[in-house]
């Protein structure tokens, strides 16, 4: 097909999906996307998470740079004002014109604000965009009470947002029940009880008649039944309306109650113009979920290829967590439709004590699942959805699926029994067949399959099903799924940690003898050495540990490519006196070392021969330096900005905190290196959010971020806890580090550890903050032991002549390694390259 000029209006989730998929076709199309919001597409589904710790940037689905990379012209913050169908171009508010061959409208929707008198005054807000969140936050700052109008899916999401802002939260719903579209009456009642237990007040069957200035609070809502409610802000979340004005003004057909009418190919009444997502009306219906929007985008995209696929409506089943409560709805949840002319039958399980409500609607013959409602427990959702979507025959007693397991229920549907056509990930439309193909193509882990198929990268609801499907497929191929340390130990690092701790094993030989086989190797020896250090903190060069260490740990320096070492003295928090700077300079000059400032605010001295190390360190230790553990899987640096001491913007003393943290955790051995930083204000000059644990000052204390990473696979750290005082901050870091040290795999950075941690950030908070596992005291005690037994390994080493024996190039000669040759570059030494070496010889 010929390359075309394609203009996409709207950069919401669906508009972005369309652009990204189109760019992937590589068909040479000239792609332009125009977004009215000032920022590129972001994840609207998880908007309320911004109030529980996520940064707005964490929601981003793309960046300007990424669009540039894939060759898309993107324009943000300038809305399209009109479509000139004759000239085939769109004109923006700023008067820019973009010509098109094909136009795609992905304009989305806006929150419906009922025409209640007074609904246009200050304090009346909507909940749809990141900018809306800013307005909500600003009003929450000097308010106590917040009301959400609308008890549907979005309304309850929004109630969650208000609650996380610390407001007394009310939900006002016109209908008699909550989530009337998705839930039946019983489910709705259960949900209401659970929400009220969370101190969110629910008012149903309330019609707001007018909003007037309040007596006690800013606003007063007066209801049709004569009652009233005072509040500081009102957020309207009573449904959405499609943005169809552009189409309407261009004489494109729209529905009577709004929505751009589209056909099976997502074409509007103008065949060169498509509409997709929440602005589109298909079969008289607006699809207000993201997955159907993606399917529309697929259908519209296929029109540009030789194999068009139609959009035939989409499943509106949904599973989500509302205010922390699991809610699921599948198909005909109300049980109202006929199947083969017969009214359906329903099975119900309701448990008031455990707060669980489950209902399934099945065909009269009991063979097909027609719908389901789940409140308080969604563990059966995946199973039920597969039965529903694949039209699979139910077991003889279908009620068994929703009954508690010890009541003789049928086991959970496993991935194996699903047909290849079964959709595993409905957001990205990944079938079981695609997953099997990815495994056939060489994927051998859930992470591989995710990367290849994109499954479970949308809402993440299918994560458990994806995992079981992948593992079953791998097992069926005879693949051994293990995370054993190496051939000498049939245990994961976490299991080894446990075995060594429980058995109180103090040496590698003991560990190998009891739990391993063979002689050990360069994988398990350092791993065991690290665990022993994390548990007992012996001197790493103690006789029985010395042969276990990597060369860097053995020589307490970092081996470079020519076999020489680099030296990094600790410069806690990046703070150093003039005297100490001079010492480093003098040492570098005396031993002819190459010096470079590191990214962690320290100074690295390169080119030391093995036999020079003790002498160099004697001088450094005498001047008051300590080892920087740059060679160890241990805490490296705690970077800092100058903070409130000097900076006009600083709100806390970040340098003092960085020094405190660095001195506290220096020397602690961990599964991989650890980096940290402390910033004195939200400008974040110390880049704390790219660290394993980062601290950012607030006016009230410290925000703690965890599991960030720079490097090969950057990961933004997650906001873990806010406004902590010094003692609580340190307590959480103690627990966090020790929990990581205990449970991570060998050489697994905190970022990867977090990505693999079942339950993720929420679970980590439960363990560290709420002490769900009851191990917090133990973690703190273990950390206290490590802190008590700290020693500067270089100080210990230079005081021990026997240990210094090791630092020789040759046991039988005082000659130096003739292969180590330096040349000068920019006034400093560096290793000679092969051609230079030949020239010198």
């Amino acid at each position, binding site marked *: 097909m010929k390359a075309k000029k394609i203009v996409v209006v709207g950069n919401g989730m669906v508009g972005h999906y369309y652009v990204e998929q189109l760019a992937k076709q590589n068909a040479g199309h000239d792609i332009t996307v125009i977004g009215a919001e000032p920022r590129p597409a972001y994840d609207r589904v998880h908007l309320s998470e911004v109030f529980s710790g996520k940064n707005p940037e964490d929601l981003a689905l793309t960046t300007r740079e990424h669009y540039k990379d894939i060759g898309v012209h993107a324009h943000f913050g300038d809305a399209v004002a009109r479509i000139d169908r004759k000239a085939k171009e769109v004109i923006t508010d700023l008067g820019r014109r973009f010509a098109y061959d094909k136009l795609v409208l992905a304009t989305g929707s806006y929150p419906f604000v009922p025409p209640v008198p007074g609904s246009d005054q200050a304090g009346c807000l909507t909940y749809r965009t990141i900018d809306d969140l800013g307005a909500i936050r600003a009003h929450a700052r000097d308010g106590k009470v917040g009301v959400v109008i609308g008890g549907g899916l979005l309304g309850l999401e929004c109630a969650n947002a208000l609650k996380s802002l610390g407001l007394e939260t009310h939900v006002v719903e016109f209908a008699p029940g909550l989530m009337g579209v998705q839930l039946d009456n019983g489910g709705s009642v259960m949900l209401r009880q659970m929400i009220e237990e969370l101190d969110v007040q629910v008012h149903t069957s309330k019609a707001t008649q007018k909003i007037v200035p309040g007596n006690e609070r800013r606003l007063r809502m007066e209801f049709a039944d004569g009652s009233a409610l005072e509040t500081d802000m009102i957020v309207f979340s009573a449904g959405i309306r499609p943005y169809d004005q552009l189409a309407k003004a261009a004489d494109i057909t729209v529905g009577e109650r709004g929505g751009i009418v589209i056909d099976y190919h997502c074409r509007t009444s103008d065949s060169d113009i498509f509409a997709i997502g929440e602005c589109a009306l298909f079969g008289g219906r607006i699809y207000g979920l993201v997955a159907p929007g993606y399917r529309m985008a697929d259908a519209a995209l296929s029109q540009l290829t030789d194999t068009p696929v139609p959009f035939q409506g989409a499943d509106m089943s949904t599973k989500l967590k509302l205010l922390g409560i699991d809610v699921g709805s599948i198909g005909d949840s109300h049980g109202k439709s006929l199947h083969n002319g017969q009214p359906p039958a329903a099975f119900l399980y309701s448990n008031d004590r455990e707060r669980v409500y489950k209902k399934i609607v099945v065909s009269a013959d009991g063979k097909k699942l027609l719908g389901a409602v789940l409140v308080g427990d969604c563990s059966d959702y995946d199973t039920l959805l597969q039965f529903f979507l694949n039209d699979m025959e139910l077991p003889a007693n279908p009620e068994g699926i929703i009954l508690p397991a010890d009541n003789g229920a049928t086991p959970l549907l496993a991935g194996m029994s699903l047909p290849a056509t079964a959709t595993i990930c409905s957001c990205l439309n990944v079938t079981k067949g695609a997953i099997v193909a990815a495994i056939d193509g060489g994927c051998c882990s859930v992470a591989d399959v995710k990367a290849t198929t994109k499954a479970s990268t949308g809402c993440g609801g299918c994560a458990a099903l994806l995992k079981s499907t992948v593992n079953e497929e791998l097992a069926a191929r005879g693949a051994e799924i293990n995370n054993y340390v190496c051939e000498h130990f049939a245990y994961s690092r976490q299991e080894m940690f446990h075995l060594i701790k429980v058995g109180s094993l103090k040496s590698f030989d003991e560990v190998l003898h009891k739990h391993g086989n*063979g002689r050990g190797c360069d994988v398990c020896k350092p791993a065991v050495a690290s665990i022993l250090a994390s548990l007992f903190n012996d001197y790493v060069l103690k006789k029985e540990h010395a*042969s276990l260490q990597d060369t860097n740990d053995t020589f307490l320096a970092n081996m470079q490519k020519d076999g020489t070492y680099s030296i990094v003295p600790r410069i806690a928090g990046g703070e150093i006196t003039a005297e100490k700077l001079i010492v480093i300079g003098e040492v570098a000059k005396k031993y002819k070392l190459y010096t470079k400032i590191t990214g962690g605010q320290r100074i690295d001295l390169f080119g030391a021969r093995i036999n020079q190390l003790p002498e160099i360190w004697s001088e450094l230790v005498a001047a008051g330096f300590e080892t920087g553990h740059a060679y160890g899987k241990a805490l490296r640096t705690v970077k800092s900005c100058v903070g409130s001491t000097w900076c006009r913007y600083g709100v806390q003393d970040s340098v003092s905190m960085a020094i405190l943290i660095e001195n506290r955790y220096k020397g602690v051995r961990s599964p991989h290196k650890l980096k940290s930083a402390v910033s004195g204000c939200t400008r974040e000059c110390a880049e704390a959010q790219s660290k394993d644990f980062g601290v950012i000052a607030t006016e009230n204390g410290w925000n703690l971020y965890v599991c960030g990473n720079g490097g090969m696979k950057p990961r933004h750290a997650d906001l873990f806890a806010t406004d902590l005082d010094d003692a609580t901050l340190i307590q959480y870091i103690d627990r966090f580090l020790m929990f990581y040290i205990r449970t991570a795999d060998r050489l697994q950075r905190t970022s990867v550890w977090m990505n693999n941690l079942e339950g993720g950030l929420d679970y980590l908070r439960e363990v560290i903050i709420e002490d769900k596992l009851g191990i917090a005291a133990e973690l703190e005690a273990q950390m206290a032991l490590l802190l008590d037994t700290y020693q500067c390994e270089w100080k210990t080493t230079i005081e021990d002549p026997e240990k210094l024996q090791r630092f020789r190039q040759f046991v*039988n000669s*005082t000659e130096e390694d003739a292969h180590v040759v330096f040349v000068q570059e920019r006034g400093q030494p560096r290793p000679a390259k092969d051609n230079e070496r030949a020239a010198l010889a």
Partner: protein
Amino acid sequence: MGTALHKQFNHEPIAVFSKANLLENSGVCALINGVQVAVFYLPTETPPLYAIDNYDPIGGANVLSRGIVGDINGELVVASPLYKQHFSLHSGRCLEDDSVQVSVYQARLEGDAVIVMLQKAQSQKQNIVQDIA
């Protein structure tokens, strides 16, 4: 300190130094006629001494004596501290790359003395085959 001692013995240079210089389950380096030899002492193995080139032909530096010793599928190896390839202590063969080989030397304990000979311990079949070819 070991006694630096270069001798012509059987027309082959040797190094002799005290056993106290050895490190259990680890390596040290001896210099014999300009050749760097990594000597590993594994007290529970028979024999307990192994000597190979100190030069890592993949990393291009004299570092093998500073690697971690262990076994891979029962074969005694040292792992290069640079890029972690394994070299057999018996044959000098690189387990990850068949085309790479380091030399193996004779080493033995005599009482309190360690004797390392520059004479190659085994005929280096691969090299010979290559030379002929």
